[in-house]
């Protein structure tokens, strides 16, 4: 079981969700974030002072999938979120040791809808 952290552009969120549903990944968590990478600073002006906007709005998606689903999910995200310009974001993969479903109190059976 792996956890995927995908940091994407906010305007790509719905496209990514659509793509995830298509490959039957139906569980994920979305967190608004701000990020910084190679994308250039924007500059703002307020009351006669410039300032750097050194953080850009991003969306972080957290998705736990079974090992089999790892590559398809990553490809789906890249497919939907890529624009080719600085700031498209990153995907990081972590190992998950256990998963529980709070509703049942048991080990989670819904990852990739294994029960299907």
């Amino acid at each position, binding site marked *: 079981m792996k956890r995927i952290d995908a940091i994407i552009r906010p*305007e790509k969120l719905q496209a990514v969700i659509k793509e995830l549903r298509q490959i039957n990944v139906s569980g994920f968590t979305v967190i608004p974030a*701000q990020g910084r990478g190679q*994308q*250039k*600073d*924007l*500059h*703002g*002006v*307020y009351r*006669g*002072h*410039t*300032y*750097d*906007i*050194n*953080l850009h709005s991003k969306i972080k998606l957290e998705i736990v999938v079974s090992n089999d689903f790892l590559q398809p999910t990553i490809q789906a995200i890249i497919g939907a979120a890529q624009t080719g*310009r*600085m700031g498209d974001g990153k995907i990081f993969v972590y190992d998950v040791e256990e998963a529980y479903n709070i509703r049942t109190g048991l080990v989670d059976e819904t990852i990739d809808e294994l029960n299907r």
Partner: protein
Amino acid sequence: MTTSVALNTIWVVLTAALVLFMEGGFSLLEAGLVRTKNAVNVTMKIFADLTFGALAFYLVGVHLLFGHDALHILGFGRVIGPSNLSLAAFTLFQIGFAIAATSIISGAVAERMKFSAYIVIVILTCSFIYPISSHWIWGSGGWLGRLGMEDFAGSTAIHTLGGFMALALAFVIGPRKNRFNADGSVNVFAPSNIPLASAGAFILWFGWFGFNAGSTLDAHSAVLGTIALNTFLAAAAGGASAIVVSVMKFRTADPSMTINGSLAGLVAITAGCAYVASWSAILIGLTAGALVIWATGWVDKLRVDDPVGAVAVHGVNGVFGTLAVGLFDEKQGLLTTGHVHLLLVQLLGTFIVALWGFVSAIGIGTLLKRTIGIRVSEDSEDEGMDIIAHGIPAYNELERFSEGSQIGFGYLDNMFMERQKDVQNSLDG
């Protein structure tokens, strides 16, 4: 100063203040209905109305509207106001009207129009387009007025005009990115702040008492009280029918439709508030509140993207309100007296003004497109106009700013040139 002039003057000054306060209403309404990233920009457009628009009308437009008549088409020279009223008060009130017309446009082109293009539109609207067509109706000797057209406080002169200019410009500029899908279906863009929008609606409703009752320009008018009551009743009826229709059609009491239903009632009663009975005002309001919901659907079907519903509220209900005078006028209405003449005049008048607004706005829009450009770049649209055009987002919760550098006062220094390049770069790639 005679008591009569004093009374009229304070009446008109107070109602003018109410009319001008409506700009705050427009601003909050729009800032609440657009997406967060453009809330500052719509606010700044209202400031453009209040500043450039007002000065343009004061310096140029008011003369074309209320100057000495030429050929029943245009005024020029010294402003002629009512005799028993301070001319300054009259002028102030008329400024409020002119910028109301142009504020209607601002909502329909929100989230994508260049700020500079908007300023040009405002100046042209307040200097020429609005004064000319309004002279036809309200100017001494205007040809529509001579035909007997009745447009007490401007359902046609202001709302039809503004609404059809809005339609034309929303059409020329095209919809917001991703608003329509290839199959014509609509993506819902969530309004950023409904309580702000409703605050705007309450201010507009409040100001409308000044708008309609103030249009008497005479505190001694026997119908002044009736005008105020009719105005309120139409708004109440408009909101009520919008709630009922939205519950029936959508199974939801939609707040933005409720707001627009009340505003539609106000727009529709604006022409006839002095001429119709109170029960007619209620009927007009009820119809307007339902009409605005259908009209919103029509605009969507045309694939015109009007983020705040300005076309449905002001354009469609401006026309309806003007025709409603032809139906319900106590002395010459079709339904009340059986006479058809007034209705035909109203139809002609509102049609001509709609056409005038639509065509001239298409003209201005096309011209802008070919010259300074009318629409921001796609990247700016993604980023939002607040940061691109105004340097600051609307809401800043996080203390996220880094050190600033004070801009050299007195000259345009290098840093700025660089800054511009940076912005350009960050937008380009």
